[in-house]
């Protein structure tokens, strides 16, 4: 199971906890959208290869 965690803003403590539980034992990647110029092309390369993407707040 390949999982991609995408962050739209700085994760809260609760978000971090959920990410930790959901990610445990899985093949996990992450991507931070909360930057000035996100590399959307690189994001999609990841989205297209994982089994599930979660866009956290």
């Amino acid at each position: 199971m390949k999982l991609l965690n995408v962050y739209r803003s700085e994760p809260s403590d609760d978000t971090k906890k959920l990410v930790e539980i959901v990610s445990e034992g899985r093949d996990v990647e992450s991507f931070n959208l909360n930057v000035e110029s996100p590399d959307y092309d690189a994001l999609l390369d990841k989205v297209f290869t994982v089994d599930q993407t979660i866009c956290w707040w």
Partner: protein
Amino acid sequence: MAKSLGIFVTSPQNMRHVMGITKAAKAKGSKVKVFFSWYGVHLTKCKEFPALCELADDVSICVDSYKNAGYDPADIPQGLEAKKMATQSQHGEIIEDYECYLTL
């Protein structure tokens, strides 16, 4: 091979991401559907919204959300087809018919 992509938009803050991801996905040859619900419908008033409607394969909004956000359902956002003032079933279509799913 690019996969098809559905984007469910509920935040009024992410138009740059909606546009950026849609542009990048179309450049890769993906089919893209975007559905705006709740306060996400405020983004229909962004100047980029008509361009998004041109770029994506399918753009729709939740008409109940649009009304509840204070807009007149007769005031169809520029670029949107009238029949795309729709219901939550659009969200179901994204999940059932598209290979990848994003929430913004």
